[in-house]
């Protein structure tokens, strides 16, 4: 099953919402640590939510490569196959 980028993007934005305390506007360039101020505990919960939503694994090795929203959408698209 392939999904278009816009659909994946919208689903991830919905998952960010509960963690986006300052209601930062999300673009491809939005960074999780610097802009959204995710700490390590938030990252764990957020990654678990993405993994459950798309039924994928994002290993820590892969997480290390993902800094911003656009990269996450790309990674999820790729992991979905």
């Amino acid at each position, binding site marked *: 099953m392939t999904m278009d980028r816009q659909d994946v993007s919208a689903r991830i934005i919905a998952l960010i919402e509960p963690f986006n305390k300052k209601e930062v506007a999300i673009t491809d360039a939005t960074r999780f640590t610097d802009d959204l101020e995710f700490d390590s*505990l938030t990252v*764990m919960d957020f990654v*678990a939510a993405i*993994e*459950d939503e798309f*039924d*994928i*694994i994002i*290993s*820590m*090795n*892969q997480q290390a490569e993902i800094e911003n929203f656009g990269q996450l959408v790309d990674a999820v698209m790729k992991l979905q196959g």
Partner: protein
Amino acid sequence: MISENQTAEHADLFSKFDPLIKMRSDLLSTGVTDPFGLVMERVISPTVAMCNGRETILLGTYNYMGMTFDPDVIAAGKQALDDFGSGTTGSRVLNGTYSPHKAVEQALCDFYDMKHAMVFSTGYQANLGIISTIAGKGDYIVLDIDSHASIWDGCKMGDAEVVPFKHNDIEAMEKRLRRIPEGAGKLVVLEGVYSMLGDIAPLKEMIAVAKKYGAMVLVDEAHSMGFIGPNGRGVAEEQGVLDDVDFVIGTFSKSVGTVGGFCVSNHPKFEVMRLVCRPYVFTASLPPSVVATACTSIRKLMDAGEKRAHLWENSKTLHKGLTDAGFQLGTTEPQSAIISVIMPDLERGAAMWEALLHEGLYVNLARPPATPANMTLLRCSLCAEHSAEQVQQIIGMFTRAGEAVNILG
């Protein structure tokens, strides 16, 4: 081009530590004693030492079974010093294997009733070496998010994909195992006792899930050896699943009472580890006196049922006493020899730690990043040599200190 008599401006590699340096200086500027600078001038017994000229009850060591001053243990160490000298000056695979090294590995095989035992120079190196070596490129390590630093460092040193799951969450672990691509090698890494809150893992359920998905299982039993389980083999033995554990990691620096680490296993090819595990090969072996004390201690721990029973009594009494006094603890029931007292913040945690020291009690102050959920903890670890009277004394000290620093209402 920079001329030879000019120095280029450089970025200070230490600036990354500035936040920690500030946190520490802020804490010390309140006038509190440095909680990470304690020196014991004299050690009187497994449970008492002289600190700052004051006789202090030790409630923050890992000396669970009180073996450090056991006369047989000390005699074995002295004999080995006389017979084999002060050190081996070499790797286990070259000139660093003496008969006491083989003897302690046999003692471990007998203690755990397993076929193979491999001794490392520290417990940290045991996790580092085994995890980084057995899980390679394309394999997956599924581990509890609250795992010890040595487990995380073992993951980081290897080439496997690392997938953490929420602490003790069986469902979260299963979901991750289910999603791993077919055919990939899988290693599940768990601990018997988690040392920060003193809680235990539901190993029976978790290992059953791991096996269902064809994963190998490694359990770190550092904080349970000697104490938990009918024969002191740990939480996996207590829950009746030790036969399903592929690798048990342990240490000599807690119940055994000296230093060193190990892995025991029934894997038929286990001995190859001695050739391929770099933290085993590329370091000097333990001094003969250390392995001789460990060997004697391990054999005595096999037959320490009464001490185990007394340590459980101590744990239950302290847990109830501190709960009744109004402290918030890491577990609602005592699950191990660790009773963790949750502090409202680092400042009051440090003040409480100091007040206890003035009462004549040493506990561990644990703070982020070592602690889960950014908690500040006063970690109490009991010893089988603490008397019932000492435990009552400890409860009194906690109550007075808690009132003095306004942690108790």
